[in-house]
């Protein structure tokens, strides 16, 4: 039976193996390649999307478990937090190679949605699953703080 869900607000149907990872469907079937494949085993965070607004590793999300839910990828994420994060990221040039960054951005938005003023400890804990091989961690942390402050002062 086909799995029906929302992908960036649009109806999506997938009729295939229910074990197929959501990441496969996003990239290969929907053609949205902003969400990256890094490890496929929940170790790197590159594939992070939002499932009903919460951070979720799409590489270990069997497609049948998203039936009736709403999936948001880097292409579709929007709203004041997303805008604040985007501006903060651009302002201090967070990315280096960029490969991990859509996952970092999605995780950061998911973190800020729950913790509008995260402490260093909150950022460490919330971003612990997002690896950056270019080690942009210091800028990521700064950008999350800048985004939090921008949102508060806005």
């Amino acid at each position, binding site marked *: 039976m086909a799995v029906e869900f929302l992908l960036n607000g649009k109806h999506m149907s997938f009729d295939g193996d229910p*074990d*197929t*990872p959501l*990441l*496969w469907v996003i990239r290969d079937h929907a053609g949205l390649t902003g969400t990256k494949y890094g490890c*496929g*085993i*929940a*170790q790197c*965070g590159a594939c*992070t999307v939002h499932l009903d607004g*919460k*951070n*979720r*590793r799409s*590489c*270990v*999300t*069997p497609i049948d*478990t998203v039936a009736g839910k709403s999936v948001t990828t880097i292409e579709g994420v929007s709203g004041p937090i997303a805008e604040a994060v985007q501006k903060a990221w651009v302002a201090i040039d967070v990315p280096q190679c960029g490969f991990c960054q859509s996952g970092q951005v999605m*995780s*950061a938005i*998911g*973190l800020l949605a*729950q*913790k509008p003023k*995260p402490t260093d400890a*909150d950022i460490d*804990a*919330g*971003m*612990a*699953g997002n*690896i950056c091989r270019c080690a942009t961690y210091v800028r990521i942390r700064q950008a999350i703080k800048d985004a939090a402050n921008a949102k508060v002062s806005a």
Partner: protein
Amino acid sequence: MTMISLPRFGVLALIASVIVLPLSIARGGEASGLKPASAFAGIADRNARSTAIFTEMGKVLMSPRCLNCHPRTDSPTQGDAMLLHVPPVTRGPDGFGAAGMECATCHGPRNAPFGNGGGSVPGNPKWHLAPRSMAWQGLTLGQICAVIKDRTKNGGLSLDQLIDHNGKDELVGWGWNPGPGRIPAPGTQAEFGALTKAWVETGAACPK
């Protein structure tokens, strides 16, 4: 000389393990399963019987499937070798993880086989860490028994509720259905529940 005798010892050990291994596999049915409560009926002393039943339950309680999420620290361990959980996760305010990095960020409602090969990420709708008061890692079986009975530590469960918890709770039940790449807890959840019932009915005694 030492350099020569060491490999020889290695060969001997290898031969020994080849001989011993099939024997242990032959008895595997018993080693990997759970004895029913009736197997302890011959122990006349009620206290000793209860203790023996709990010791049998200990095969489940001390399996990696249970212990990994009953850590001493704020982070679980993982796998049959019980290594520190990777990626590094913390329990958060309620045992369901930190904001933005919840258990559910990776652990879904069911086990998720990896898309690129063997193994799986375990899953259950209730996936979370046991509370600090139920830290079992590093405890003896007797100490685990004591905290399991202590309502101030076990989430307020009475002994009767404990029978239900062990025999029917779906997150406990995951231990017997851990997905590819993990050894299940011994026996079945129903057998574990029946042993818990027999243990409570014999006075819920704890091993020393």
